């Protein structure tokens, strides 16, 4: 079931305007090169706090941020890409990781607890207990009437309070989109070792639409557009975490490389020049953001 093309709508990218395709690609690049710069900085001991990299999974938030930009966001611990794709300031994120007062939470919270309340983004900070953001998000939807997206992993989805909150959202018909970034890993323990059941089936049994797809951004965008009219709803998205659960190391090669697949597809659509330019811009801006001398100055090392 889990594969690089599970649930993909064939040729769906061809139905989108070029501007949308490129904007999603731009967000992917932005998150990707942020994390790549962070890896260098961490390896050089310029960032010493714990870091939870989004690398490999960034297509999900890139697509979601285009489909549901106005939603209240309750993200999980692995959320650099969510923060950046929805419009968070990269300098504030960098500074948060450097434990600086100019960070997104004044350097007090760190990589797995990001918040953002600017640029029309309302992203509530996570505190590190996986799945805690789901009942919180459901409560925020209940209290505000505003649409909410709760993003969590396949491990968090096993927390009993996640199911309970999803069930409550069904009972009260709350406008919540539940998104599971299913990288198959709880640290390094795979789903098949941990459970024999499907979160999607549970969501359906609770009475909400539930689908399994892979992290093809165009399919995510399309399916999100459909489901946002029928909330609450659940999307399980197969994806690949490229680095350690926490830290910058590599366990095994990812099962698939979504970034390469996306680029190949855009190249096939005749957008080679545009995506090369976008990638170079992202790379350059993030190299500046993570410039070694700048970091030394900021952290006074």
């Amino acid at each position, binding site marked *: 079931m889990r594969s690089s093309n599970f649930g993909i709508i064939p040729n769906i990218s061809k139905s989108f305007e070029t501007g949308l395709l490129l904007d999603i690609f731009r967000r992917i690049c932005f998150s990707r090169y942020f994390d790549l710069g962070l890896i260098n900085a961490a390896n050089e001991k310029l960032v010493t706090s714990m870091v939870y990299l989004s690398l490999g999974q960034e297509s999900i938030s890139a697509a979601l941020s285009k489909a549901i930009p106005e939603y209240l966001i309750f993200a999980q611990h692995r959320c650099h890409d969510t923060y950046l794709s929805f419009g968070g300031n990269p300098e504030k994120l960098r500074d948060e990781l450097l434990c600086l007062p100019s960070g997104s939470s004044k350097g007090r919270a760190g990589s797995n607890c990001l918040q953002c309340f600017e640029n029309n983004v309302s992203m509530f900070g996570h505190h590190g207990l996986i799945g805690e953001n*789901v009942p919180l998000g459901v409560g925020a939807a*209940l*209290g505000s009437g505003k649409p909410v997206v709760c993003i969590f992993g396949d491990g968090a989805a096993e927390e009993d309070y996640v199911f309970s909150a999803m069930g409550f959202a069904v009972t009260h018909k709350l406008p919540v989109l539940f998104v599971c970034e299913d990288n198959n890993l709880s640290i390094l323990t795979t789903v098949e070792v941990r459970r024999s059941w499907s979160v999607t089936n549970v969501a359906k049994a609770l009475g909400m639409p539930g689908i399994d797809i892979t992290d093809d951004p165009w399919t995510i965008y399309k399916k999100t557009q459909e489901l946002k009219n029928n909330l609450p709803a659940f999307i399980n998205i197969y994806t690949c975490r490229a680095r350690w659960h926490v830290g910058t190391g590599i366990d095994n090669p990812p099962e698939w490389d979504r970034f390469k697949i996306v680029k190949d597809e855009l190249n096939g659509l005749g957008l080679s020049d545009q995506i090369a330019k976008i990638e170079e811009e992202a790379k350059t801006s993030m190299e500046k953001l993570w410039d070694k001398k700048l970091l030394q100055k900021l952290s006074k090392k």
Partner: protein
Amino acid sequence: MGQKTVAETIKEITRKHLEENNGLLLGESISAVGWVNNTVPNCKGIVELPMTDVAGAGIAVGTALVNRRPIFVIRFQDFLILNGSPLIFFAAKIKELHGKCAPIFVRAIGAEGLGPVHSGVLHSIFMHFPGFRVCSPMTPAEYIEAWEDFIKHDDPMICSEHRTSYLNTAEMKNVLKKNADVTLYAISSARFEAIKAAELLEKEGIISNIVHIMWLKPFKITNGMTKPLHQSKLGLVIDSGYEIAGASRSIAYELNQATGCCVKALGLFDRTKCLCPELQNKTPDANRICETVKNMING
């Protein structure tokens, strides 16, 4: 019409909050028999949670994040063990971590003699963690003070109620006597027992001051607390919760440090509360308080 009871006061505050302030009240089986000991009005803004304690608390905190200032009802304080996670790990931390707030008023209801999982008084646990305001009002005016404090601030509040107080209409003023032999500092339902104990002790020629403690956190040492202790030289802090690592010992330590006087703590024994009367491990009653005081005086 006479003075309102504590229960009537809670009900009135709640009705006003729900009907006039766009507030919410969340809890399990709220509308079941008795409407939580007749403390909850039948009006808009009540959200019946499913029997899902951890998620329920998270949902309640979520409504606090969007400024609904929820009242979250915990019918028995023992259930705080399950409900505590979103309160402790999220609501209480958000201000220091993110500069945001999750003002939630937790009605944590204590009881007595109802067996191992319905008789707990757990406010001490929440005194331990940063970010909470913790109080234990036992009178109508104190309950109003607690509520007004909650509205004035943006912190999560643990309001440690006790069923023993619900029919109480009287305010409880400190009792200060000349030449007192001991000062009793009483918390929660132990306050009612401390008053009885002082009467019993007086019959035996032992004079007691009584200082009522409602605010557990922040806990501020006041002249009203230290002056009688300086005079009596002996103090005893009595609480309805467990003594070890509990409110009674914590406050006894603070009073000792502030005055240099001998202050002891009296709370529940270090054993599980059981159903049968001889093993209920109840709030220290007047007789136990008297015995402890006499032992202190006699060295």
